[in-house]
């Protein structure tokens, strides 16, 4: 697909999302409370204003994209070349998995070391020093700074009670 046509499709998709958000999700997510009893603006006012503004800006963007008046963005050059979005999605999934389950089950330090280990493997590190030693060094540094230095208690595992990790 041509880049300008692809951009038009992306903007149109965002416009549909904005409309769905404004017409369906927003009324579901904000009750009117006291906002409609004459005490001032409705609680929906600011989000509705923002959503309407987004929709108008997207319509302007769609028109500009279709008539080819959108200026070339310098960031485009930075994002060009060979890209691997699946790796990003994989890394994001690993991070989310540990943030929602791993840190709770294993504790931050053990869970964190495992997370760094998995990520370094994903990024192609194969040397034992990189895969095993580096995660331990990193979590040790975090322990020194947060736990000992700043007295911040990071999540501990219920599985290893008595172990301060």
């Amino acid at each position, binding site marked *: 697909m041509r880049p300008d046509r692809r951009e038009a499709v992306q903007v149109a998709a965002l416009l549909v999302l904005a409309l769905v958000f404004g017409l369906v999700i927003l009324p579901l997510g904000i009750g009117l409370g006291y906002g409609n009893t004459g005490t001032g603006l409705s609680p929906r006012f600011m989000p509705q204003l923002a959503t309407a503004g987004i929709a108008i800006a997207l319509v302007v963007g769609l028109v500009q994209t279709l008539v080819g008046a959108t*200026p070339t963005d310098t960031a485009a050059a930075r994002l060009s070349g060979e890209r691997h979005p699946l790796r990003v999605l994989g890394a994001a999934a690993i991070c989310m998995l540990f943030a929602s389950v791993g*840190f709770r089950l294993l504790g931050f330090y053990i869970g964190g070391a495992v997370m*760094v280990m998995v990520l370094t493997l994903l990024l*192609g590190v194969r040397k034992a020093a990189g895969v095993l030693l580096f995660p331990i060094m990193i979590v040790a540094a975090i322990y020194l700074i947060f736990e000992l230095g*700043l007295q911040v208690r990071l999540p501990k595992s219920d599985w290893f009670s008595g172990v301060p990790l």
Partner: protein
Amino acid sequence: MDAILEGISLSFSFAALAAIIVGVILGQILGSIPGLTAAMAVALLVPFSFYFDPWIGIPMMLAMFKGSLFGSSIPAILLRTPGTPAAAATLIDGNPLAQRGKGGKALHTVLYASVFGDTFSDICLIFGASTLAAIAIRFGPSEYVILILFALLSLVSLNRGSPWKGVVAILGGVLLACVGLDPITGTERLTFGNPELFDGIGLIPMLIGFLAISEVFTQLEQPLKQLGERTVTFSTRREDNHLSGAERRALLPTLFRASAIGTVIGSLPGLGSTVAAFVAYNEARRTAKHPEEFGHGSLHGVAAPEAANNAVGGANLIPLLAFGIPGDVAAALILGALLIQGITPGPIAFRDNPVPIYAIFAAMLLANLVNYLIGIGFIPLAKRMVSVPKRLLFPGVLIFASAGAYAMRGSLFDVQLMFAFGLMGWLMAKLRFPTVLLLIGFILTPILERSGRQTLILVGSADGWLAFIASRPVLMILLGILGVLTLLILRQRIKMRYAAIPEEPTDSS
């Protein structure tokens, strides 16, 4: 005079000096960790200050704040992971310099500009606290609304890509800021029953997610071979790692202008260093001899936001010390520490017990000098800290950021939000939407919404809009400035559009 001398002697004691040195070192180290903000560093030290003598605890906290402001620019420049939203303005030109091997020069510029802006605003604080605070205190909610609109307009004009993308990003930030309880009625907005969202979305997960995590994700898209390379390479040429006397002199007009912008904005409670940094950057680009260099590694583009950002730090204490009103999060934390130590800042303190106030002034100036001297030694260390292969550094950044996001509220939900925002920021970068504008919209919305609603109530009690505006001279001046600025931006945009269209060949026959 005796009070001034007594205040100075308190700050120049050995214990206070040692506290300042320790504070600056801790601040620079904490600030240079991606995701740890200056406010967070001060917040973490407030409980500790209770265990120290006031003349040790307070100078240490002030020094830590100054050190962390400089430290937060190090990851911004070298890793494109700013520790504060204000540092995001520094990376626009700082990072291109680092990419060309001139990271050392960029960091020296940052240090020079930071200390310059800080000292400028501290001197303004000392000599003009009551005068500037008297102007700032006249600002009501309607003036705040205009000021914020002024800031947002500047930011959209600053956006290098399509203006409509800037508008979408800012309004996206406004929407995210609406999550939580309505500030007037207390109605739940977009929380969908999740109690973790009742206080709204935390600033820390937003900042780390959109600025640090999204950048890591963007870099992870590169081929593995490139990920094995070192993050930043530094040129070995002396001129690339040093700021010459001529360069320092050339930066002076920019530094004076940016420091003045930072001082004025900083003396207005609530606007903060982000607005100052971006307004100063825009002003530096507008007045530059070579505006085309901005965005590609201009030293003026590095110096202006840094000087303004740091000038806000001192100026924020103007309303705090003169009226007892904190200007931003950091000033509120400093107020908390002063109250813990039994010092209540305000006009009465100036009249009845000025020694602590003068001691604070002296400690601030001393901390600037220490920040500069330690900063010079810290730059080579910082360069070594970030010179590791990306495939090792990025997992490290992700786990450090997780600890930083968790530490502020002790919530794993914040860590999940941070990664979700990281993914959103990565998508925004792919679609070329400016994430920094989203963050600014997010940060300014609570003040905008509160002030907007208060203004409507005030207008309702006046005889209509015109009578309301006519009764507020400061508002009239601000409206005039906003109108002129809008016209200037429109003129600039139209000129740019015509410059982009190639001229039709004229028929001479």
